[in-house]
C-alpha cells in the first residue's frame, strides 16, 4: 500500500506517527536504577502523595527489557558504571534516559576519585533533574518535560 507520496511523509504516516508519539508519552515504563539517597525521593514521588501514576509512569519495570525510560537515581560510582551501561544496552529502542539528582547530572559535591562526574560521560541523557535530592515536584516537572520531548520525537515507521 502506498502510504507516502513524493519525498516527505504522507498524510497517513504523519498522523500515525503523532498518534504513536502521543500514546508513548502516556505509557512510560520506567526502570529505576536506584543506587543512593535520591531513591528515597523516587519512592516518595512514586507513592500516594505525589503519585507519578497521574502522568502515566506509575509502573516501574525492574527488567530493562520491558522498560522505556532508564531513571538513573543516585550517585554512580566508577565501580557500578559498567553495570549501568549494560542495563542501558539491554533496553529496547525507543529508549530515554533521565538523570535524577545532581550526582547523575554532574557528580554533584562528590568531586572525588570514586564518583562518575555525570552519567552523560557514559550514556546519552535526555532529561536532567538537578537537586540533592530533587523534590518530588521537581521530579514530576522533569517527567512532564520528558513527555513533551517524547511527543515531539518522530521515529521512522517501518515499511508496511
Amino acid at each position, binding site marked *: 500500500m502506498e502510504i507516502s507520496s513524493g519525498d516527505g511523509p504522507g498524510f497517513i504516516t504523519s498522523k500515525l506517527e503523532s498518534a504513536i508519539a502521543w500514546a508513548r508519552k502516556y505509557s512510560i515504563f520506567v526502570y529505576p536504577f536506584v543506587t543512593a539517597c535520591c531513591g528515597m525521593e523516587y*519512592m516518595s514521588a512514586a507513592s*500516594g502523595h505525589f503519585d507519578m501514576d497521574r502522568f502515566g509512569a506509575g509502573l516501574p519495570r525492574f527488567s530493562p527489557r520491558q522498560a522505556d525510560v532508564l531513571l538513573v537515581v543516585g550517585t554512580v560510582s566508577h*565501580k*557500578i558504571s559498567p553495570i549501568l551501561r549494560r542495563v542501558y544496552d539491554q533496553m529496547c529502542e525507543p529508549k530515554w534516559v533521565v538523570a535524577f539528582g545532581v550526582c547523575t547530572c554532574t557528580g554533584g559535591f562528590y568531586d572525588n576519585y570514586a564518583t562518575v562526574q555525570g552519567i552523560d560521560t557514559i550514556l546519552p541523557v535526555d532529561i536532567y533533574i538537578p537537586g540533592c535530592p530533587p523534590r518530588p515536584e521537581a521530579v514530576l516537572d522533569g517527567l512532564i518535560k520528558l513527555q513533551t520531548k517524547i511527543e515531539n520525537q518522530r521515529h521512522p515507521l517501518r515499511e508496511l
Partner: protein
Amino acid sequence: MTVAVKNMLLNVGPSHPAMHGVIRLITELEGETVVKVEAEIGYLHRAFEKSCEQSGWNQSVPYTDRLNYVSPLINNFGYCGAVEKLLGIEITERCQYIRVIMSEISRITDHLTCIAASAMELGAMTAFLYLMKAREYLYDIVEEVTGARLTVSYGRIGGVKADLPQEINEKLEQALVKCEKEIYEVDKLLTRNRIFIDRTRDVGILTKETALSYAINGPLGRSAGINYDVRKVFPYFAYDRVDFEVPLGERGDNYDRYLVRMEEMRQSVRIIRHAVKDIPGGPVNVDAEGNVLSSDELVDEAKLGHTAGLVNVVSRVEPTLEGSERPFHKRIMSEDKRVVLPNKGDTYGNIEGLMNHFKLIMNSHGIRPSKGDTYFPVEAANGELGFYVVSDGKDRPYRVRVRPPCFFAMAGLHTMLEGYMVADIVATFGSINMIAGELDR
C-alpha cells in the same frame, strides 16, 4: 546411572529486580537451597572520609547526611556529638531535646522505609503505599523544622541550625497521630497475615552468638535477644531523661525483626511525646527591649558606624535563617565562641560578632580542636553508629572514621542466608535494611 550434579553459581545484584540497594551477592546453589553466599560491597563508595579530610569541621556535616540517607538527622547529630566531645563543649538543654525529637522522627522514617520496602518485596504493595504515606507526614515536619525533606544538614557543631518553629507542637502531634494510624493499619495487614508469616517466620535466623561474634547490634541484634541499645547503655543527649523501653526478640528471624521495628516506632512516638512535653525554653517573645530591624537596614546602620544602639536589636533575617535570630540563638547554641557562629544580629550589628563570624568562616581559620581523638556512638536506626574523629590541631579533620551498623550486618549476612531457599534471600535481605550509603561510605 548417576548424574553428576554441580552446584550453580548465581549472581544476585548489584542491580537485581527484586532487591534494593547496590550489593552483589555471589550465591552457590544446590538445587534451590543456598549453600554459600559471599557479599561484594563497595558499589556506592563515595569517598566520605577523604571528602571530610578536605573540607572543614562544620563543612563535613552535609556528607554525613548522605551516609544513612533514610535517617540523616541521626548521622548529623552523631558527627556533631563526636566533634563536641573532642572539643569538650556542652550543648544547651533545649538543643539536647531538639536533637532527641528529631532523631526519633528520623528513626521512625527509617523503620517505615525498611518495613515498606521489605513488605513490597514480598508482594505487599498496599503496606508499602500506606507506610510511604506515613513517612510523608513526618517528612513534612522535618521540612518545617530544617528546611529540607531529606538531606537536611540540621546539626551544627555546638547546636542545631535553628530553633523549632513556634507552632510546631500541634503539627507534630497531628503528624504523629496520622502516622500511628498508618502503623496500626499496617499492623493489621501484616502481623497476622498468613503469607507474610510463612515468608518470614523461622527464615533468616540470626542467633545470639553469631550476632555477638559479628558485632551486629541495633534491631537485628535486639531481635536475636541482645539487650544492647546505645540510648540505654551509654545515654547521650537527653535520652536518660525520657521514658522508653527496648523491645527484644527471641528467635532472631525475619518476623522478629519486623516486630522489633514496629515496636521501636511506637517507642519512638512515646519518646517524642515525652520530649515535647519536657523541652525547656517555652515560647519566645520578641525581646522586650529589642526593636526589630531587617538585616539590610542593620548592615546599613553598622556601615555608618551606628553600632552602639544595635546591641539589643533583633534582626529580621532571611527565611532560610529563621529560628537562629538572637533570642533563639542562645537557647539552641553552645556559648563557646571558638565553635559557634554568632547570630546574624551580632554579625551585622557589632564588630565583635563580625570578627567572630570571620574567624570561623575564613579558610584556614575555622574551628580548630586541639590534637586528639575521640569516639562517640549514637543509636542509629540500624544499630550503633559511631564516629571516630581525629584532630591534628588544624581547621579540618585529620580523619573521620565511621562505624556503620550495616557493615557488620553485611559481614554476617551469609549466616542468615545459607541453608535457606533462593526465594528467602529477598525476604531476609529486605529485613536487614542494608543502606549502601553508610555501608560503602
